């Protein structure tokens, strides 16, 4: 999907300004996250960080590749199951369990990606949704997922045999490190030549093809990267909550990550992080009201699509740009 603020070729001076803005924003964000566990409940902050990484991974595909996947929950949930199984049943240390989960969703990403990129636009969304539903039913029936109960009391273990993850604060900073690594990796991908080609495909696929790019390969690569990073988020989440359950594979979760990205600002670097924190905070307060959470989510969708398509960060950036007279 083309981001509403069409990509415009910047002069190199603007590029430098943008890089400076990104660097500053990144430092502010990291500083906030470093002090976060002393201000808010650490488990809440970890949950938000996992979802922020999930949304960033999703945004890599939607905001920069123009591909709307309506089934990203399958990567989050599947990685969670594999990680939980590896840590609990196989007794793997957390770093290997997380690696196993991430690898599983990367492989799943290859299979789903190969099928889904055969169609574009709306069909792509429907196909990913349908395949995710298939994965959901697989998880309901497969013996290792524990059905309705999920996999509970997953051991957190010791990272690299040294860091005791049962200490909440240690765990928090490990999660923050994972998030930051994923975030920087995505930033690097977006600003690489690969990322530029991806944006070109988003803007005009036939033209990218006529320029000689094998767009299918680029789209598949973007899909697999996004799936793998979503898997990293799901794997980390399973270790944090010591739980892998059907909630994470359900289509409502796929919808939630779309909403986080849309609300924060798709195609922006920091938008998904903002969106994830906003939705998780909202969920915190509205969760006990049950259906009201669903209704609010739906309302945010409608408002965002009708009036607020650039999202929080997109609007903010547009406003800043206008003020600078750009």
């Amino acid at each position, binding site marked *: *999907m*083309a981001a*509403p603020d069409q990509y415009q070729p910047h002069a190199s001076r603007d590029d430098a300004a943008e890089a400076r803005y990104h660097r500053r924003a990144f430092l502010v964000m990291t500083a906030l996250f470093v002090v976060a566990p002393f201000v808010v409940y650490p488990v809440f902050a970890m949950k938000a960080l996992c979802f922020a990484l999930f949304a960033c991974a999703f945004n890599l595909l939607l905001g920069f590749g123009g591909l*709307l996947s*309506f089934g990203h929950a399958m990567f989050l949930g599947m990685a969670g199951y594999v990680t939980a199984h590896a840590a609990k049943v196989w007794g793997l240390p957390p770093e290997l369990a997380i690696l196993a989960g991430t690898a599983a969703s990367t492989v799943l990403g290859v299979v789903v990606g190969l*099928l*889904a990129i*055969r*169609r574009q*636009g*709306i*069909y792509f*969304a*429907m*196909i990913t*949704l*349908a*395949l995710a*539903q*298939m994965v959901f*039913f*697989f998880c*309901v*029936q497969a013996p290792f997922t524990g059905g309705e109960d999920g996999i509970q009391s997953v051991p957190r273990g010791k990272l690299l045999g040294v860091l005791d993850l049962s200490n909440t604060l240690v765990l928090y900073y490990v999660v923050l490190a994972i998030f930051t690594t994923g975030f920087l990796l995505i930033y690097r991908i977006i600003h690489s030549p690969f990322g530029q080609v991806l944006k070109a495909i988003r803007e005009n696929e036939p033209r990218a093809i006529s320029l000689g790019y094998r767009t299918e390969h680029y789209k598949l690569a973007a899909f697999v990267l996004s799936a793998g990073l979503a898997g990293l988020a799901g794997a980390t989440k399973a270790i944090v909550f010591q739980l892998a359950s059907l909630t994470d594979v359900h*289509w409502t979760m796929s*919808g939630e990550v*779309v909403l986080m990205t*849309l609300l924060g600002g798709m195609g922006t670097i920091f938008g998904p992080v903002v969106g994830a924190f906003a939705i998780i905070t909202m969920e915190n307060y509205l969760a006990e009201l*049950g*259906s*009201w*959470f*669903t*209704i609010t*989510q*739906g*309302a*945010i*969708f*409608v408002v*965002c*699509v*009708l009036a607020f*398509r650039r999202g929080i960060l997109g609007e903010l950036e547009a406003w800043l740009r206008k003020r600078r007279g750009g």
Partner: protein
Amino acid sequence: MTEIFGVPTQALFGQLLIGLINGSFYALLSLGLAVIFGLLNIINFTHGAQYMMGAFAAYFLLNKLGLNYWWALVLAPLAVGATGVIVERLMLSRLYKLDHLYGLLLTFGLALIIQGAFRHQYGSAGLPYAMPEQLTGGTNLGFMFLPNYRGWVIVASLAVCIATWFVIERTKLGSYLRAATENPTMVQAFGVNVPRMVTLTYGFGVALAGLAGVMAAPIYQVNPLMGADTIIVVFAVVVIGGMGSIMGAILTGFGLGVVEGLTKVFYPEASNTVIFVIMALVLMVRPQGLFGSR
């Protein structure tokens, strides 16, 4: 008792019947989606919620106004269609110039609101809806026992599907519609009010979902989430059939319902996933769908 492939014929025909019933709903729903997609280029994610609204409308008509099933069959689709017209006028019409995916996101949001609101009001447990008394009981067909209501659902939905196909493919009105699908600007230049046609088409597609909901009410219970999972299966049906042809949507709907029913007999573990597996296979062999043209 006779057997086919080691399966008692009673069970086989029983599941075949259930398959045809599910297929009737798949056909009606994917037909509505195809009609809407043809003119609006929007995938209506609210379709499942509107199907549920049809069932609830039938429930209200019976329990609040005392109007029976036959009234519901007419009034409920009209009511649901009317809400569709409002949605199109107020919201969807603002999105036509944008990427079509925004339509998907908007209708997804609407589905969340509608389903959330009904669940808030009526909980997740189903409400029973009595079968119309004219259609209770059943007929012995010799090889199986056919409950009358189920036979009626199959015949009625087949009739509605064929009537829709006839209107779109064989009448003057339908030719306007097909022309507007090809080139709305040109049709407008010939003096046809295309925006109104778009509104009414959306209303009609939504009304089809409402009608499916009324017919489903006596079979499944009236439940706020009855459309939530169904719509995903219908999406897969649409991908398999390809959105290009009306008849394609009807045939794929019935056909996949039957396949799903047969899977329940021969390999029950896969009955939830068989349609998605078929979708994956079709994507590998014929990405544009069985009846689709690029």
